[in-house]
């Protein structure tokens, strides 16, 4: 590999492996969203699928964490997420309260039980 190519390589990867495979779905949405209104059945279904896909990503990130989060035991990660969610419900649906509670628990649990 020449020096110039070696320097450009990460950017080529960014475009072909990061940008294009991701952007294609936005482009497809733009093409298919024309002429639909916000209450139409396909938009309702799309919202349900988007929410469920996002929920799937959340489950995946919690169960199979990577990087430094992987060093925190699964039970601590799940416990912090569940209790954070309960705090959110109890604290009049305050996102901030729920996130703060979950984070504090993860920090404490990680400190006590880190692998």
């Amino acid at each position, binding site marked *: 590999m020449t020096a110039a190519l070696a320097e450009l390589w990460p950017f080529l990867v960014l475009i072909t492996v*990061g940008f294009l495979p991701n*952007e294609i779905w936005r482009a497809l949405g733009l093409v298919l969203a024309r002429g639909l209104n*916000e209450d139409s059945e396909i938009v309702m279904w*799309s919202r349900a*699928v988007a929410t469920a896909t*996002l929920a799937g990503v959340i489950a*995946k*990130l919690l169960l199979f964490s990577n990087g430094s989060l992987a060093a925190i035991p699964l039970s601590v990660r799940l416990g912090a997420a569940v209790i954070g969610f309960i705090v959110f419900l109890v604290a009049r649906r305050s996102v*901030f309260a729920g996130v703060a509670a979950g984070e504090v628990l*993860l920090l404490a649990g990680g400190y006590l039980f880190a692998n």
Partner: protein
Amino acid sequence: MPGTGPLPMTFHSKTAAYLGGIRAACMSVFLVVLAGTYIGLGALAHDFGLSAFWLMLSTLLVWAAPAQVILISGIGTGAALLEVALAVTLSGIRLFPMVVALLPLVRDRDTRLRDLLLPTHFTSVSMWVESLRILPQLSPEHRLAFCNGLSTGYMGAAVSFGFVGYYLAAGLPPLLAATLLFLTPLSFLISTARNARIMMDKLALGLGLSLGALLTVMNLQFDLMWAGVGGGTLAYAIHRVREAMA
């Protein structure tokens, strides 16, 4: 809620709506979320030897934290590029229904296609969740400008915090780095729950979580796609049946 008196948020011009969007971004809980997520991503990019400029470009072009996590860790661990591309595209599927659900909200009768290019590219979880909550309270002619302002604010914050994380990375202890990475799933979970207005949204969230966990544990291929399409369709079907019976 149409017909319930004056709109809670009114603007005198499109510029004012755009600036209002930036202000809404700065005051939203997602700013904290983006800060945590992108500080974590900056640290990750630094650890894997990518440049700070590369990270900025990936934020501007990809603009989806899960895809960026996959991309950076994939490049960093030397995974096969085709495999990384497939994982990125699977994580990006959720953007398709998001765009389909968002555009009818920002579109006016005389909106041109090229005006929709920006909100289309800007579509991401944080912007989508906030747009679906706030846009219905705005008059239709100001929604596009507000949405672009909101996204500009979020994207600017993400780029800035990416730099912060990149240059913090050297000194960040592992436990704090883990806490930052935990912000992504935790805040996505709770903010999606707050955004769940009707039973269908709550069902989709619950079904997506359980199916996502189940299929990932089973190590099924395309698990994310099945969790999303399966869980979402089931939630939609239950919603239709309940409506028909009511």
